[in-house]
């Protein structure tokens, strides 16, 4: 396809957007769309004459692909939980459920992308930069970590907050300190706590309460465990597959694991962070099991790995390369502490029903410190060699 019809069309309208053209103020936007359609014809002019085929767009596309199983399972579960709540005879694997979930989840995805990409485009335009691809991933993650009953305007507001305050003021993709998607959730959590916790927010329609059958509990397994209702806990299989209430994309550990395999196999996600995160979570779980003074502490440590947002956070959030530790040794420490803190906060802090979000944001702050010590160790080794 060296000179297809689409290319001819793009070449024809291109001068309009270039310097001196009528619409030159939209140059970044045009470039964004052009490079979306075509890998540009730029050739190397310094350094290495050949380059790896990988680029930021491909990288982000792979991550989005890795998230797709979680999206689909989230849609299925949205429908399933809704039908359960209104007392219909529901099965998880049903087209009706998927369709219902699709209609409910898509608006979140659309709003998240529209707001986030809108801001990205505007900022790129103002700065005269190329458009950064970072939000392609954030945009799909945001809808997956919020409860299904969150109003759309809140999603829009939180996304705008996260993109502007969390990313653009630091200089855009690659410069941010906090994971953008998690910042969205943190904003919602602190600004609208009643929409972010409780037993009635996880299932579509339950907040309004229309048609919900008597005695139906929308509580997540974590909430049940915290309340000591150990009899209400779902089976391990149900938690693993994701037949449980929770944020849209976090419920199915299986789907998240498929994503993890994609990220690790392609070499795009850090297996070191994922592995050490799981190890850290398990370690804290075991420690709590040993003391086990309340019901939540009695939850077997490996159940914790499938409850709440732990798997989703460790696989898709903690591995964000910009906000994680950047040195290889640092990644082990960072991942381990994310897992450790997530379970610690989850179990021991009564104010927060889930600890993953705070654990990762907290470790985002400490990642540079971890890296600092790794770098210092490298420097010291060199100095020691000099003295020897």
């Amino acid at each position, binding site marked *: *396809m*060296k000179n*297809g019809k*689409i*290319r001819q069309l793009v070449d024809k309208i291109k001068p309009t957007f270039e310097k001196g053209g009528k619409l030159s103020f939209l140059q970044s936007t045009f470039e964004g769309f052009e*490079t979306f*359609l*075509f*890998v*540009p*014809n*730029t*050739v*190397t002019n*310094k*350094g*290495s*004459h*050949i*380059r*790896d*085929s*990988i*680029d*930021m*767009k*491909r*990288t982000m*596309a*792979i991550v989005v692909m890795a998230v797709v199983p979680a999206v689909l399972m989230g849609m299925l579960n949205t429908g399933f939980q809704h039908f359960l709540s209104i007392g219909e005879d529901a099965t998880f694997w049903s087209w009706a459920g998927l369709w219902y979930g699709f209609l409910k989840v898509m608006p979140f995805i659309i709003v998240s992308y529209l707001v986030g990409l809108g801001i990205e485009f505007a900022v790129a335009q103002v700065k005269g930069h*190329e458009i*950064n*691809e*970072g939000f392609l991933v954030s945009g799909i993650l945001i809808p997956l970590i919020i409860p299904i009953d969150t109003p759309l305007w809140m999603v829009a507001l939180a996304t705008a907050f996260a993109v502007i305050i969390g990313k653009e003021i630091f*200089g*855009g*993709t*690659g*410069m941010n300190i906090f994971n953008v998607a998690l910042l969205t959730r943190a904003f919602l959590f602190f600004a609208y706590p009643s929409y972010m916790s409780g037993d009635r927010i996880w299932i579509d329609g339950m907040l309004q309460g229309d048609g919900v059958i008597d005695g139906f509990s929308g509580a997540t397994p974590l909430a049940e465990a915290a309340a000591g209702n150990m009899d209400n806990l779902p089976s391990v299989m149900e938690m693993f597959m994701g037949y449980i209430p929770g944020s849209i994309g976090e419920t199915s550990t299986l789907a998240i694991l498929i994503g993890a395999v994609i990220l690790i*196999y*392609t*070499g*795009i996600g*850090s297996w070191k962070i994922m592995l050490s995160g799981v190890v850290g979570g398990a370690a804290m779980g075991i420690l709590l099991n040993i003391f086990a003074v309340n019901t939540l502490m009695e939850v077997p440590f490996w159940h914790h790995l499938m409850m709440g947002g732990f798997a989703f956070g460790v696989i898709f959030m903690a591995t964000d*390369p*910009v906000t*994680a530790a*950047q*040195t*290889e040794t640092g*990644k082990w420490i960072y991942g381990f502490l994310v897992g450790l803190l997530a379970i610690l906060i989850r179990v021991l802090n009564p104010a927060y029903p889930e600890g993953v979000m705070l654990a990762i944001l907290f470790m985002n702050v400490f990642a540079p410190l971890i890296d600092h010590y*790794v*770098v210092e160790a*490298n*420097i010291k*080794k*060199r*100095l020691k*060699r*000099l003295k020897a």
Partner: protein
Amino acid sequence: MSKVIKIKKGLDIKLKGAAEKVTVIAESSDLYAIKPPDFVGLTPKLCTKPGEKVKVGTPVFFDKNRPSIMFTSPVSGTLKEVRRGERRRILEVVIEASKDQDYEEFSSGNPEGMTEEVVRDNLLKSGLWPTIIQRPYGVLADPEAKPRSIYISGFDSSPLGVDYDVILKDEEASMAAGVAALQQLTDGKVHMGLEEGYPVNKTFDKLKNVEYHYFKGKHPAGNVGIQIHHIEPMNKGDIVWTLSPQHVCAIGKLFLNGKLNPSITIAIAGSGISKPRYVKTMMGTSLKPLLANMLEEPESVRIISGNVLTGTKVEAEGFLGYYDALLSVIPEGNYYELFGWVMPGLKKFSNTRAFFSWLRPGKEWEIDTNLKGGERAFVLTGQYNKVFPMDILPVHLLKAILVEDIDKMEQLGIYEVLEEDMALCEFVCTSKTDVQGILRNGLDLMRKEMS
């Protein structure tokens, strides 16, 4: 056999068009050139004017700051032209060859019996001194310096890399003499890095007083900088010299014959070449006779003096670089690709498995010069580490350079690296960062600061 050093990180890029192990004698060229930009740290000052006659070994220009370093003509003939670029910087000094070749006379004899001064003067006067590259910074060697040791890599692991079994056939005597000469220049040792698992090249075998090291691993295992790092890493204040084996032989021939022998064998390779093979030619030769009828599509190829990761772009009418034993020709990549970033990518080489090309291991790839994406800020991490076999934090070093933090650069090990050692980092970079350019800026800054 001594201990084998395993290089665990790296990447072999198998390109289509490796040179067949056949050597042909190239048609001799009318034009030859010495290109001052090939030499880092050189301020050239001409000592021959256009129109003047030169012999093989006659000085053409010298280093203004260290006038003893001479750059001599590889042929006898007439100095034809001095091509200049911006701010009258000398780019090429072109010499037109005459039919008969006259040679300048230099000292000859067994270097083992010579003093250090005689050996050094002979190299300086003959114009072979610039074959020595000094680390740190990768500059012309300082004639007053005493290197800690001298390193020679006996194999080339780079894409389309040359095979010294072909290039250095029947060079045993010159290699031995060259090594003997180098031994006079250092109190330390002459080290040679060889590839484990291959029969030792006869030319490299049983050299006197040479310490052999065996390396096993992917590119850049053959880079002398990587080898130094694993043999005895450089500390602040250390000076080491490196040479290519072919240049060591040239030095040997100088001492054996008392004349400058500019003949070299190079590989012409790459998917843009119709008959990739080795040719016997001369230093500084014009590429015209080498490439005649060899280019598949002359309009749409890039000719590179050196390998595809570190070489210099040259025109078809241009000249061979001083340090290069390889001419790579690959297709230019100035085309658009519809939805290139979502396609399966069976034909796209990548060190990640983000394209389905991982289904085709062992394939020889045709990679063009397309940048394959846009430049971005650093986003992905750990990519460089996979292809950079040194105990150095590459991204942190680059960031120290970007903010011009001299102390940090030193602490993070800038003395140990040259562009070629980090070239693969640039290749694999998702953000298309200009790694070699940044590193060169850092090296230049450091050199200025320390002098």
